[in-house]
């Protein structure tokens, strides 16, 4: 899969970082503004896909190794489950056991919810990017099969 023209590559160099930052902002402020883990994760995945579309798969493979994607998916889910299981120490599964430790409407409040958002954001971001890579690999195999 080849990249696009020089102008696209030049602009992408700036916008990838901005999109990633925006996605991280939505993930982290999930308990204050609409969004949260899933929506922020989708935007993080979009930044990776933007990179692959502009530069081509070979270039992207050097920057984002596949081991990292794999690890990100599994660790995101395990982290989320671990937060839930830690709630048992205070009584119930998924209990919000550090609620009330901050002041409302600030960034450091609402207990375990920001951690859950971060875990979901990592998992969804890497997961959607893996789906995109997997689907585009099929296209490659079919084109090579025809030739």
């Amino acid at each position: 899969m080849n990249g696009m023209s020089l102008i696209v590559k030049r602009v992408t160099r700036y916008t990838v970082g901005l999109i990633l930052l925006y996605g991280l902002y939505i993930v982290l402020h999930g308990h204050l503004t609409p969004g949260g883990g899933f929506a922020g994760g989708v935007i993080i995945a979009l930044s990776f896909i933007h990179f692959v579309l502009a530069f081509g798969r070979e270039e992207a493979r050097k920057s984002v190794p596949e081991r990292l994607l794999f690890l990100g998916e599994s660790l995101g889910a395990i982290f989320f489950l671990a937060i839930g299981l830690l709630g048992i120490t205070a009584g119930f599964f998924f209990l919000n056991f550090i609620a009330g430790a901050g002041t409302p409407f600030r960034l450091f409040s609402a207990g375990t919810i920001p951690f859950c958002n971060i875990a979901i954001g990592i998992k969804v971001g890497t997961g959607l990017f893996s789906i995109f890579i997997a689907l585009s690999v099929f296209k490659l195999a079919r084109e090579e099969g025809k030739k």
Partner: protein
Amino acid sequence: MMNLLVIFVALPLFAAFALPVIGRLLRRGFDILSVIVTASLSACALYIIFNPPVFPLVYSMGSWQAPFGITWLLDPLSAFMLIAVNVITFFVTVYSVNYMEQYTGKWKYYCLLMLMLAGLNGVVLSADIFNLYVFLEIVAISSYALVAFGTEAEEVEASFKYMILGSIASAFILIGIGFLYAKTSTLNMFDMADALSKSALNSRLLIFVSALFITGFGLKSALVPFHAWLPDAHPSAPAPISAMLSGLVIKTIGIYALARIFFNVFGINSVTSELLLALGGVSMFVGVILAIGQWDFKRLLAYHSISQIGYVVCGIALGTPLGIAGGIFHLLNHSVFKSLLFLNAGSVEYATGTRDLKKSGNLQESMPHTSWTSLVASLSIAGVPPFCGFWSKLVIIIALFQANRPFYAALAILVGLITLGSFLKIQKYVFYRKIKEKFLRIKEAPVFMRLSMMGLAVLCLVIGIFFKPFFGKIIMPAAETLRAGREYFIMILGG
């Protein structure tokens, strides 16, 4: 004890995501880890049955009480379904240690199987209607992926057909949930039963939602006329997945969810009962008639699944205590012997490479374990004493006579006789026939496949022989929770 309930969903989910990371460290690490997880879950389920807590046990997630939070319910019916799900998944996992060597990417299979197990446990335990829908979707998505696991042409086609019909069913169920939420403004099943009992019983909204749910859940459980996906999906899947699909999935997300919602939340009335009885009767008959002309081993078993699910729905739709008990007992028995039959078919396919009845023969000498367990399962499904199938079919037929429906009882007896004939045909063609060109070098199945098949056959025999205490202590309390209907859930809300 309360926190033990969480293990049933959290442990398989944890295993599904940790398996690719941790399992690579050991040699055959995936197999060992999956078998340990399913064995410990079966031990937990058996512990709950033999040391029962005070039923009903209500577990609120994150200590948000009903009606604000998500609650889980453990009552005799849930405990019974937990045993069925976990024990049969344990046997299927042991079987697939050897069987899935034919496929590449075995760790992906184990991840999907653990996800399916987490979803099945969640459906059985959940007492919140949207939570039930989410776990139902987890089971459905992992089963779509598992049916297409071999990625040959026929498997992918069967999985696509299954996926389209399954997603239509899920859309209908979600619309039904939306209507119920609009009417009762709560999602908790206890609260919903309470709110629905205060309004008119036969209002038009309730009839519409009942129709949506019968379509949706009936499609998931392959009642006729929604059975079109089953004869394609079950044969094309790998054999342990066919056993899981036919033995557990269509029962848990189809019949258990249908029974739970229709008995405990809506309250069964005579119109719904007649409709479900008619659908069950048609399923019994159509399944067995279509199975007569089949020469593919697994496709024949899939059609027989439709017919036996018709038995279960007939039993449960009666609404009398004996009828519900017979239906639930047949549900467990069918899980056991149908899984065993599909595992046998897989073993025959593993050894000979074909599923066609006309091409195989004389396997009695070269595969004695498969042959004897297949004989046990065939006698069980045909209803021959002292195996387990005889007792459950007898209870259903007696309940049909008692409820004054001789037509359905005669239909059940006729279908039983045709089933017996069909399975004698399988036994003759696959195991006992002498054919001219013998299969050379047919070996018996590998050790784990043999162990799991023998374990299931022993279970068939044990349930059949120790029928009386099993029925009295486990089945009758489970049937009582369904028969008590809406009042049971209203009582839980109050107490």
